[in-house]
């Protein structure tokens, strides 16, 4: 499988004196988390399929600083940001795509005032643009007619008003898109944001991911589609707690599209 996908690094492009069309910012989860790595690979397969000349930073990539910033550690955030910006600017990066809404938000909104100005896209937006340009075709395949609900990641939806790109992709799968009672701008958080991913929740009556999973199960989906590796983890855990892992799958939109075509 590994030989089937091409993953050039920026250093390789630089050595050849070329610029890629877009930099794929993999993110920490996409690089290290076993579940999220599958999303990364699915997205890369789609990029290969669409003949997108992309590159990754590889070992030169580092955390954007999002969880540090949202914990209140502005120092650490800005150290990370400034270091990353140095790397990105040295490679003269113009366009970045990422499958993580947290990286997306930070790169897009919080890097410019520190000297990092790039066109930043979430992978669902990028896939949508490939589709619109006729570079990528999406077929329903095994997802045709399946009930799919989309969980809006806070940092994609409310934080940046991206609601339609992921939904349009799901509809292209000829699937039945069903909405939870809290969706789009009223979407309920999965519980991972604001660095909650890395700590135990405060005392309460319920975990947030359980509340959200219950909302998802209410609409009886066969698949819960996600657009964020952290949401994916939280929803997957929720489904396990509800013992529904045999009935409901949690999948990233990139995985849905790649799997539909048996990539």
């Amino acid at each position: 499988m590994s030989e089937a996908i091409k993953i050039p690094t920026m250093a390789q492009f630089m050595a050849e004196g070329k610029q890629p069309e877009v930099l794929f910012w993999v993110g920490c989860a996409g690089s290290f988390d076993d579940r999220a790595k599958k999303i990364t690979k699915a997205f890369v397969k789609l990029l290969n399929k669409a003949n997108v000349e992309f590159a990754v930073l590889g070992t030169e990539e580092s955390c954007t600083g999002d969880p540090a910033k949202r914990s209140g550690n502005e120092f650490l955030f800005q150290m990370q940001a400034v270091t990353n910006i140095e790397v990105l600017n040295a490679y003269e990066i113009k366009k970045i795509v990422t499958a993580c809404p947290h990286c997306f938000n930070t790169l897009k909104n919080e890097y410019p005032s520190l000297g990092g100005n790039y066109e930043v896209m979430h992978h669902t937006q990028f896939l949508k643009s490939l589709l619109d340009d006729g570079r990528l075709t999406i077929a329903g395949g095994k997802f045709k007619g399946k009930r799919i609900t989309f969980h809006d990641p806070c940092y994609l939806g409310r934080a940046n008003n991206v609601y339609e790109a992921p939904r349009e992709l799901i509809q292209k799968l000829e699937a039945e898109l069903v909405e939870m009672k809290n969706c789009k701008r009223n979407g309920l958080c999965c519980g991972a944001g604001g660095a909650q991913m890395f700590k135990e929740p405060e005392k309460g009556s319920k975990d947030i991911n359980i509340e959200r999973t219950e909302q998802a199960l209410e609409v009886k989906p066969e698949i819960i589609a996600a657009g964020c590796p952290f949401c994916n983890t939280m929803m997957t855990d929720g489904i396990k707690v509800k013992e529904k892992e045999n009935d409901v799958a949690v999948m990233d939109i990139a995985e849905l599209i790649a799997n539909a075509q048996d990539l």
Partner: protein
Amino acid sequence: MNYLPNILFAVALIIGLGYFIRNIKKLIRNIKLGQDIDVSDNKSQRWKNMAMIALGQSKMVRRPIAGLFHVIVYVGFIVINIEVLEIIIDGLFGTHRIFSGIGTIYGLLIGIFEVLAILVLIAVIVFWIRRMIIRVPRFWSKEMTKWPKNDALNILYFEMVLMSLFLIMNATDVSFQEMASGNIISQYIAPWFSNLPETTVHLIERTAWWVHILGILVFLNYLYFSKHLHILLAFPNTYYGSLKPKGEFNNLEAVTKEVMLMMDPNADPFAAPAEGEVDEEPAKFGASDVQDLNWVQLLNAYTCTECGRCTSECPANLTGKKLSPRKIMMDTRDRLEEVGKNIDANKGEFKDDGKQLLDDYISREELWACTSCNACVEACPVSINPLSIILEMRRYLVMEQSAAPNELNMMMTNIENNGAPWPYNQMDRLNWKNE
């Protein structure tokens, strides 16, 4: 002796307005205790936001039932207040319905006022039923006991009484009823008084007139002590509300300066300050008290009318955590009021009272429960941002006190050492390629 009512009226008006202005000045002074923030950009968008969100109530109607009735009360409030102009002129000059001479338009206007008055009365009763009979949960949260609860009810009772007085005043105004123009609602109330002697009816009319206008003056002065300030502050608050994407948190400039210095290979950390450079006291990072917040955040606190839409959307609150974004705003306002009173009592200077917003009002447990999901910001009908206050207080805890929860400290240590929130080596970042 004939001028006695006029004089009394003028005195009441001066006291009413004077006390109000005094308190508004205090309010502005308190808001200015906040840090400066540049909000001079993009004026056209700001006016547009104010027109849409405050004037146009665009976010109120996202919840259709509360939204509809709120629009009624809001339109009623603005339109019926035109009548106050006539009342003030009548009161000062001893005239009676000075504008009635303008003919049919007068009847039309009063007719509109009367219809609105009855609609407002109904809406306010609906609000009372929602609060006290249906008991909409967000009105019964922990922070909504004692004064916040009574305050909300006081406002409803005030409005019920004022609207009733307005209608009674019209119904018992014999000459107005004889005009038979504009008494759309009051003509049905007038018969209730038809058996009473003329002098009694006149007395009722005068009493209703006086209690109505004095009530308005009292209500005006009640605002400062109440969550009801939103009827004024919603306008500046929506104007100064953030224009950035909700996900964008500000980059602290003081930190940028230090980071740039650290990253500059030519910087000499032991260099003496350049000639003429003032040795500034290092900035405090984040907020532990209201003076550390910026003035827009303090304006936010005074604008909050405790509707609780934020809290009812907050994932932490929905799952039983202590955090309530509404309480964050109420605490900020209450502490700011306390600081203001302290300044008043100490001849214009704040004397340390051993208290602060952090811990004495807002607990750490509340702050750490936030997922930064922006649901509260999205829910607020008047552009209040509780999340920005939570973030500032986390910044204080982390950067001034190193008091983050241990797991977060581990996460941050990992980022520092190996560029990821987990303890994986940065050199392994591309290993997924071959797995």
